[in-house]
């Protein structure tokens, strides 16, 4: 993790958190919204590994909770493991393939949807299972998958993978 990468990711995730609360949330399909923060986080973690993903997940969650005046730590609780797992997933796959972003974003969306339902249920803020699964999770999954590859392509330009590393990954 280079300082330049860390700085770029910090600024980018803050910007994406702002875009999420003001731009992405009003785009409603069913009760689901595109989750720009998750898609960006997964892309970053795939490109830079689990340590970067973990820290980025924590920071993204914090930025999201601050920007939306939400419960501090709640989003970090779910995005930190999401960043870690996406990073681990990225280590074992080739970074030039379009499939890892799609698979990682799909898994991340399911994790975030179910995890957030469980956490909110534990905090006494339940919603019906049909709303969470059919109304929120399925449309969110579809929207996130639509965003996954374009966002990943963009992130690859901002956070280029070194040529040697790319070769090693392909050899593996």
């Amino acid at each position, binding site marked *: 993790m280079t300082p330049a990468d860390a700085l770029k990711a910090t600024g980018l995730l803050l910007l994406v958190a702002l875009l999420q609360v003001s731009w992405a949330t009003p785009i409603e399909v069913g009760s689901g919204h595109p989750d720009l923060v998750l898609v960006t986080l997964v892309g970053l973690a795939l490109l830079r590994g689990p340590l970067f993903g973990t820290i980025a997940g924590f920071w993204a969650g914090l930025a999201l909770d601050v920007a939306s*005046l939400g419960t501090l730590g709640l989003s*970090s609780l779910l995005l930190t493991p999401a960043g870690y797992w996406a990073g681990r997933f990225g280590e074992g796959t080739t970074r030039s393939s379009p499939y890892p972003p799609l698979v990682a974003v799909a898994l991340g969306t399911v994790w975030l949807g179910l995890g957030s339902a469980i956490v909110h249920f534990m905090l006494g803020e339940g919603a019906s299972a049909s709303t969470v699964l059919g109304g929120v999770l399925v449309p969110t999954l579809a929207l996130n998958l639509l965003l996954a590859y374009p966002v990943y392509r963009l992130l690859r330009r901002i956070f280029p993978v070194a040529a040697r590393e790319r070769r090693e990954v392909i050899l593996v």
Partner: protein
Amino acid sequence: MALGLVILSLALVTVYFRESSGGALHEAQRIAVSILTPFEVAAERVARPFQDAYGWTTDLLSAKDENEELQKEVEALRQQVVANETAAQENEELKELLQFVRGKEFPDDFDHVATRVLIQPQTVFRHEVVVAAGSSDGVRVDDPVVTPEGLAGTVTEVTPNSAKVRLITDPQSAASALVLETQAAGIVLRGPSDESLDLDRVAKTARVEPGNIVVTSGARVGKYESLFPYGIPIGLVESVSQRDVDLFKRIQVAPLVDFDSLHEVVVLVEKRRKG
């Protein structure tokens, strides 16, 4: 590292829940929010025409009998229409707000702070919005938030230039209310679905009929006064039923406020306090 940050997140959630709204974490969040709010305001302003364009597009897609020729014409005029509609809608909403605050039904003891909704509800679990007015505008925690249609919610958190509003459809919201026609009193709570309310604690002997108007009661119990002034419309009675085993009537209420298109609201600020 991952485990450490997860534990740190859990600690943050725990401390945030346990501390008072004046606690260190809340204070830090307020400072951070006050720094971010100008950016959020700017983003909301830029996003509004796009949101309207999105709404317009989804409406267009759902229309089945669209004529092809008209579609071409509409496509050509789309950008202009979106811009015009955005301005006209904003103008209309502001006019409605102005009529409302100057109207007879506006409570006497209150001043108004008209503001825009910056952030729509982020999850299905919490029905909360963030508005672009805060303590620097005189807004305080527990201030009622209304629209020309009726009660929207209450302020739950305030920063210098923004405030979090818990909508009346949130599971944690409640308002003492009465049926305008018969004065039957009860408490309005979230109903079985996202868009419905229940009027609970209404005696089985009380007369309530579908179509009756439910308003805030402004009740005072001992030294405790309702947060809401008397007479703010909440909704219309949709259905009334009662069973032998129930202690109270089962009354479903359809809220008057359209929470899906909440753009402009008025925060009621007590005159006494302001003075």
